[in-house]
């Protein structure tokens, strides 16, 4: 018979305001096996934990129930407490009387009654608990960073600096990501390339870092410390080790009409190309959709001009398999499509551009070589209208926009407006805003400078319609403070499009079994306390794949993710989860049904000799669970007809006992 102690937490008034904690402690005293029951202000505090420790010693407790907040909050705390008092840490059960009781019910009698029932269920369960010991598994001391933007770059550099090997997988031919496309950065106005490209070079030169550019992750198996990852290296038709990046091929390639994605299609590149001058790796790539040689077998100009002999038209996709101890998602963002916002005439006029396109129009390496010209006629725009929150904070229609604030638009629009006025003082610049959000170091000062020093017209209101008419864009908008409808003849309209997670994030999350929110941002293990970890062990989050962020935030989060990875990789062994499946060999039929449903391949079979009651022996096929591989989902336990397969910590009997206690 177990000797159970019950500890009811007040959580200040969080619980005690709606649950009569004393009554709960009192009621649970009479449950079978309970030998001690008490309540305390804050069970998780040192003093509270001491009460538990003392009670374990004094009453020789074999199991404890803590009625408190969610086990997701403090189960580990109390397990450690139990262990410190010499009790197996799995002899602890939590009754969640805060999140699932006091916080969701209004009156004291209801709350108290439910808390008692939840307590009884926990007592019933702990009565059937058995001490569990976690197994151990080794750690592969290598990290994988998925995404080679500023987030991935920073994470990889920090991990590599700590002495661990890191691989970066980037889908584009070069690392650099969105930051490489930016002109200047707010609020300091440093040139993005000037601060990013040295880091890219550092990555290329770091011996601990390998770059798999033009590659993607196609399969992930395993678990924390032991991931098996398959990386597809797409055929780039240029041998990376031979190409010197001289660029001769990209000048001679006769196929000149390929939309240049680096400049968002606002100019053209060749079929063989290096995305931009500072690309890393600085290696040419052949675009198979446009290369005449690959499509028709006729041409071969690049091969002829390549003195290094790097061109390989026969190249095939290659698959690399590698083991990793930790994986960092750094898949980044994209501006949303403007298709559904044609009231702004994005599809009707080339002079309606997104902010990222504007960034390229301002950039010295952009399609206009840094002179701000209208895409339609290459004339200087004299009136520019910036529209904020296009698709951000938009809750009316999920396929149209995003409900969240994209966070970076207010600041980059201020930057664009300011830079425009700085370079071209003869230009009228209007910014239509709903709110200007500038919570960041030196951010509001920056925005105020745009208004006060650079004379940008900030108008509280929204553009309702843009009508291209002749060379002009007729902008119809509201000025809420003047209570007027404005009609502005603009030359260029810039839309601050909402940002969304890259489309590759969703399939990646599925491969990682990492959870995502409704917007396809990765979910963090805890929104405040574990912001760079995924709830899936061994998976870490860096940059905008977790939520909208500017560059300083991304870099600091990238560093934080790196430090978590370093912490994991510096361990030699990981303690596993002892709540794993276990098959009772006497009951097992060896039918293989359990192995059919196991997502981890943790179940194997062996023939074992059994002694029969009549002293004969019999060979039987039985299931064996690999405890290091089993993650404890319990799917096999339901597939098992005879009930031979059970899940430690969540045994059939325990769950039934909980159900019984609730239904009593």
């Amino acid at each position, binding site marked *: 018979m177990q000797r159970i102690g019950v500890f009811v937490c007040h959580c200040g008034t969080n619980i005690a305001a709606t649950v009569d904690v004393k009554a709960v402690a009192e009621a649970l005293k009479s449950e079978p096996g309970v030998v001690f029951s008490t309540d305390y202000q804050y069970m998780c505090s040192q003093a509270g934990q001491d009460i538990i420790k003392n009670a374990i010693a004094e009453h020789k407790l074999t199991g404890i129930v803590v009625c408190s907040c969610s086990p997701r909050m403090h189960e580990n705390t109390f397990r450690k407490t139990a262990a410190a008092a010499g009790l197996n840490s799995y002899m602890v059960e939590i009754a969640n009387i805060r999140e699932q009781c006091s916080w969701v019910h209004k009156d004291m009698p209801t709350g108290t009654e439910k808390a008692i029932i939840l307590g009884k269920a926990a007592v019933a369960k702990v009565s059937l608990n058995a001490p569990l010991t976690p197994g151990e598994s080794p750690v592969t001391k290598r990290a994988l960073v998925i995404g080679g933007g500023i987030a991935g770059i920073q994470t990889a550099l920090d991990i590599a600096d700590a002495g661990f090997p890191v691989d970066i997988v980037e889908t584009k031919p070069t690392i650099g990501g969105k930051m490489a496309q930016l002109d200047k950065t707010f609020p300091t106005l440093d040139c993005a390339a000037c601060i990013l490209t040295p880091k890219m070079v550092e990555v290329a030169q770091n011996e601990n870092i390998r770059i798999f550019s033009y590659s993607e992750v196609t399969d992930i198996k395993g678990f924390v410390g032991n991931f098996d990852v398959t990386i597809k290296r797409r055929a780039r038709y240029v041998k990376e080790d031979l190409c010197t990046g001289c660029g001769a091929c990209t000048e001679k390639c006769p196929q000149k009409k390929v939309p240049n994605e680096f400049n968002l299609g606002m100019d053209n590149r060749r079929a063989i190309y290096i995305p931009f001058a500072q690309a890393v790796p600085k290696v040419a790539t052949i675009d198979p959709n446009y290369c005449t040689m690959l499509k028709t077998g006729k041409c071969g100009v690049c091969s002829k001009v390549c003195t290094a002999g790097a061109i390989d038209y026969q190249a095939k996709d290659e698959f690399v398999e590698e083991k990793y101890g930790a994986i960092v998602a750094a898949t980044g963002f994209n501006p949303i499509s403007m298709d559904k916002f044609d*009231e702004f005439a994005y599809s009707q006029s080339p002079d309606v551009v997104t902010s990222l396109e504007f960034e390229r129009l301002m950039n010295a390496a952009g399609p206009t070589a840094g002179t701000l010209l209208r895409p339609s006629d290459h004339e200087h725009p004299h009136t520019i209208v910036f529209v904020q*929150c296009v698709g951000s904070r*938009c809750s009316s229609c999920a396929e149209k926009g995003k409900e969240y604030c994209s966070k970076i638009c207010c600041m980059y629009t201020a930057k664009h407006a300011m830079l425009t006025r700085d370079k071209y003082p003869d230009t009228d610049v209007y910014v239509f805003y709903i709110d200007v959000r500038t919570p960041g170091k030196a951010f509001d000062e920056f925005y105020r400078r745009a208004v006060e020093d650079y004379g940008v017209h900030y108008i509280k209101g*929204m553009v309702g319609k843009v009508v291209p008419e002749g060379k002009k864009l007729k902008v119809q908008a*509201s000025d*809420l403070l003047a209570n007027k409808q404005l009609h502005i003849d603009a030359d260029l309209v810039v839309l601050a499009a909402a940002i969304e997670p890259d489309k590759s994030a969703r399939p990646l999350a599925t491969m990682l079994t990492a959870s995502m929110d409704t917007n396809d941002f990765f979910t963090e293990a805890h929104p405040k306390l574990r912001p760079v970890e995924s709830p899936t062990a061994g998976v870490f989050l860096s940059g905008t794949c977790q939520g909208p962020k500017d560059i300083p935030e991304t870099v600091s989060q990238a560093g934080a993710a790196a430090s978590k990875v370093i912490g994991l990789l510096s361990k030699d062994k990981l303690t596993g989860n002892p709540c794993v499946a276990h098959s009772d060999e006497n009951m097992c039929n060896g039918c293989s049904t359990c192995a059919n449903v196991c997502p981890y391949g943790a179940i194997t079979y062996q023939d074992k000799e059994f002694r029969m009651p009549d002293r004969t022996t019999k060979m039987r096929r039985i299931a064996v669970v690999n405890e290091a591989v089993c993650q404890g989902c319990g799917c096999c336990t339901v597939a098992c007809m005879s009930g031979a397969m059970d899940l430690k910590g969540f045994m059939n009997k325990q769950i039934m006992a909980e159900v019984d206690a609730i239904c009593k």
Partner: protein
Amino acid sequence: MLNKTERQKEQILRSSGVNPLKCMRCGKCSGTCPSYDEMEYHPHQFVYMVETGDIETLMKSDSIYKCLSCFACVDRCPRGVEPAKLVEAVRLMAIRQKDANHLTPNDIPALLDDETPQQLLMSAMRKYSK
């Protein structure tokens, strides 16, 4: 007991099915409204004035007859507030009062020409009288 303002607001909200609290005051409705210049109170003001219960003022304003029910504000509102439905609810409240029809059959002949489609008369009667 609700006072008159609260009663009116309650009725407008129920009849329109609109929740003005969803408004984030961006003004896109007024930015897009084709009848803006004809209106004394503009779509975003309708939303705010209903929220604050200032319905009597709206009922007395000619603005309620200037709305074209083109629903541009409804479709373009980022928050799904549907200002046009508020305008309509206020207009209905106004014309449902005794002898408050904005248009009566007697007014019509003077407004017609040879080509006037039935549709116009029908919709005008629907919109302006009870």
